[in-house]
């Protein structure tokens, strides 16, 4: 095979070097991705390429298939057709190197701290990082509280901390600020931007146009299970090319 990594492999591989030695996950290539349910096409031939680095924002009306697409890229859903290739690695084998912050966070029935402890331990990460992660998302003072008693915004922040705890190379965020107050929105955006600056590839779903402008290096506009537009942010916002994106940005109903 011609596309093997050229990186020289050191004679003795220590666990710490593992990530360095692995072939990078990007670029991503998606071709002809389909998913149907009960005769209706939910994803209808998605074509997509993502380059390394930066933040891609996915926008589109409710039911466009954004959440389904994220789960497929993350290897949680098996497509009905087509292919997802993370630089040659199929989606299902890339899951462990990625993290997904779900639209509705699912937290364990334990304390805030124990939620992070569990993930750090299960994934063989340094348990001592827990407090730093909690501080980063502003939840250190809630460490002992049951996670189930967190407010919607706090739960989102804990879900974000949990995603960061696994040191993902790619982080998917599915409307992570949908129920947050404006200050918390900015906190989350800052954390995500910091992760991006550390080299984590960000794929971010949002309906908030202002947020999309702040975060996006490029925008994918999804409409009826297809990519209607994939442009750089500085092109998309002033001059969306697809009629659906134009209507969406203008606040008109897109069906």
């Amino acid at each position: 095979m011609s596309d093997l990594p050229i990186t020289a492999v050191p004679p003795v591989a220590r666990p710490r070097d593992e990530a360095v030695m692995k072939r990078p996950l990007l670029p991503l290539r998606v071709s002809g991705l389909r998913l149907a349910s009960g005769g209706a096409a939910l994803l209808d031939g998605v074509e997509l390429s993502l380059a390394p680095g930066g933040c891609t924002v996915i926008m589109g009306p409710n039911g466009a298939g954004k959440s389904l697409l994220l789960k497929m890229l993350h290897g949680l859903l098996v497509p009905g057709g087509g292919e997802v290739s993370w630089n040659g690695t199929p989606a299902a084998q890339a899951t462990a190197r990625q993290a997904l912050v779900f639209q509705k966070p699912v937290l364990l029935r334990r304390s805030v701290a124990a939620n992070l402890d569990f993930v750090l331990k299960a994934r063989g990460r340094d348990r001592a990082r827990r407090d730093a992660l909690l501080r980063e998302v502003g939840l250190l003072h809630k460490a002992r509280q049951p996670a189930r008693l967190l407010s919607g915004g706090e739960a989102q922040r804990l879900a974000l901390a949990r995603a960061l705890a696994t040191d993902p190379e790619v982080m998917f965020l599915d409307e992570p600020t949908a129920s947050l107050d404006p200050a918390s929105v900015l906190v989350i955006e800052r954390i995500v931007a910091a992760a991006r600056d550390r080299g984590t590839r960000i794929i971010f779903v949002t309906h908030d146009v202002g947020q999309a402008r702040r975060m996006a290096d490029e925008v994918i506009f999804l409409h009826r299970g297809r990519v209607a537009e994939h442009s750089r942010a500085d092109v998309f916002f002033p001059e969306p090319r697809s009629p659906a994106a134009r209507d969406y940005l203008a606040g008109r109903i897109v069906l």
Partner: protein
Amino acid sequence: MQSIGEAFHLALSLVLSGEADLYEIVGLSLQVSLSATLLACALGLPIGALIAVSRFRGRGLVLIVMNALMGLPPVVVGLLVYLYLSRSGPLGFLGLLYTPGAMIFAQTILIVPIVAALSRQVLEDLHAEYAEQFRSLCLTRWQSIGALLWDGRYALLTVGLAGFGRAVAEVGAVIIVGGNIDHLTRVMTTAIALETSKGDLPLALALGIILLVLALGVNAGVQSLRMTAARQAHV
């Protein structure tokens, strides 16, 4: 034969007098049934959890069989265990027959299906909620099972309780493998059966009252534990 009221009166005074024989029987009952419950949980919870998180061919059949086994008749279990433990049986060398060990053995077999089937149900509901998150975190099957068992611990208390209730109340299995030997294998239910057939209703009733109070007490204890947990939103 005494009137019912008279019998009740005698029974109550028996309970209150703290008679040694009576409390020996109660103690053995608790010892046998609690041991059986713990053993059944050690076996049944992992089985229930494993089935809850697994999808395989014939799973539906396994569920049907498991549910059917919940209704195992105690006398049949007693008979089977008797055959295994009798001198000529495969486990005869253990010399367990007519000892509390045999009774624990039989009750464990009786309630393992209850613990497995009920915990499967509880954990499957929990797993439905957690499954996608767990797959995103790439947890191993045993990590998932561990997390489900821990997070479902309060609901699983009720499962253990159901097993204990069945064990402590059954008579068919323990009487066959234990033999209802005085001071050795006599428990509440076998004593009640014996005393009733002998016509000693006060003793039978006294034991019956204690059995009821125990059942109520254990249930109340578990219930309040669950409510505390619910208040702390751990459930």
